């Protein structure tokens, strides 16, 4: 089960570019407790150290919108200015900022203004 771009045998080739591989098809569930299975066929890559679970940025960002990713953790400590108190405001702000950033940071284009 050597993924197309995710096994570490050949150091010059095995660093996948963002968004180029390993996206799990939408809705493909992972069977709980059986992580060696490869639903969708591309999430898992074999490396010399064993099987590794690899996700690219795009896939992780897509997971952010799933319902299970939005509920606050039950054990979130209350740290003023860090995790509290205005969770709703933070949500709105995060989404706003994220949306703005996504527009400018897709693909491989330069993310920084250079004025050195």
């Amino acid at each position, binding site marked *: 089960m050597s993924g197309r771009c995710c096994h*570490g045998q050949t*150091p010059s080739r*095995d*660093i*996948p*570019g*963002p968004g180029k591989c390993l996206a*799990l098809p939408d809705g493909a*569930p*992972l069977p*709980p407790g059986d*992580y060696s299975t490869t639903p969708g066929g591309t*999430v898992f890559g074999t*490396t*010399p*150290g*064993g099987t*590794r*679970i*690899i*996700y*690219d*940025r795009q*896939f*992780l*960002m897509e*997971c*952010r919108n*799933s319902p*299970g*990713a*939005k*509920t*606050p*953790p039950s*054990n*979130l*400590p209350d*740290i003023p*200015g*860090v*995790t509290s108190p205005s*969770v709703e405001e*933070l*949500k709105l*702000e*995060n989404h706003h*900022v994220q949306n703005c*950033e996504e527009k400018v*940071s897709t693909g*491989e284009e*330069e*993310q*920084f*203004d*250079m*004025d*050195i």
Partner: protein
Amino acid sequence: QNNKAAVLPAPPTRLKDDDSGDHDQNEENNTQKDSEKEKNDREKPQSTTKRKAVVPGPAEHPLQYNYTFWYSRRTPGRPTSSQSYEQNIKQIGTFASVEQFWRFYSHMVRPGDLTGHSDFHLFKEGIKPMWEDDANKNGGKWIIRLRKGLASRCWENLILAMLGEQFMVGEEICGAVVSVRFQEDIISIWNKTASDQATTARIRDTLRRVLNLPPNTIMEYKTHTDSIKYVCWPGGCCRLHVCSGSSVHGTGLGRNARVR
């Protein structure tokens, strides 16, 4: 998931202070010298509390490792050496899946919105964000200094790459830190074996890719005793400068040439 079992909690030791090594050299040294007395006070970290193992939920996407978010903040006006590290560093929580990560991340402020002398740390579960942890004691870190306004985006890109196992260096990654400071912010990623140049080079190259670093970005690799500075050029990274000993702390090179 066999790898998860290999990450065991290390014996509690002194939590590190400033990951960056950029500021407060004197405070740092003091901390190391007079830490013995306070060590006992500090050796009751949160991890001694019995915790239920964190596992991915049904239909969630498991991560290669469990990770723990930490937050630390230096109280203004008080010398570090007199502070309990337990008061300064807090565990926010541990997650085992992509979805659990987002639950924490979406309910934490972004680093660019933190105030004061603050840090977010994201380390593999069982590795404390401090030099003395067994996983870190032979290690080092890549450091990138950022002008204000970039930390949130760079931090997100950095930790997504770490969680998604984009660095391809086996077990080498320990964790990542974002440090909010007065005039600049610093992100860093820690690995276990500072002497493994193939690993550190691969981490450096992955950082350049996932952070979209512009040319001329200063990247420093630091261990306890050495610091090597690199400049990214379009064709690759060149070694700029080699320093030995802690005198490298506070050098102005990185600040002047940081990402603008």
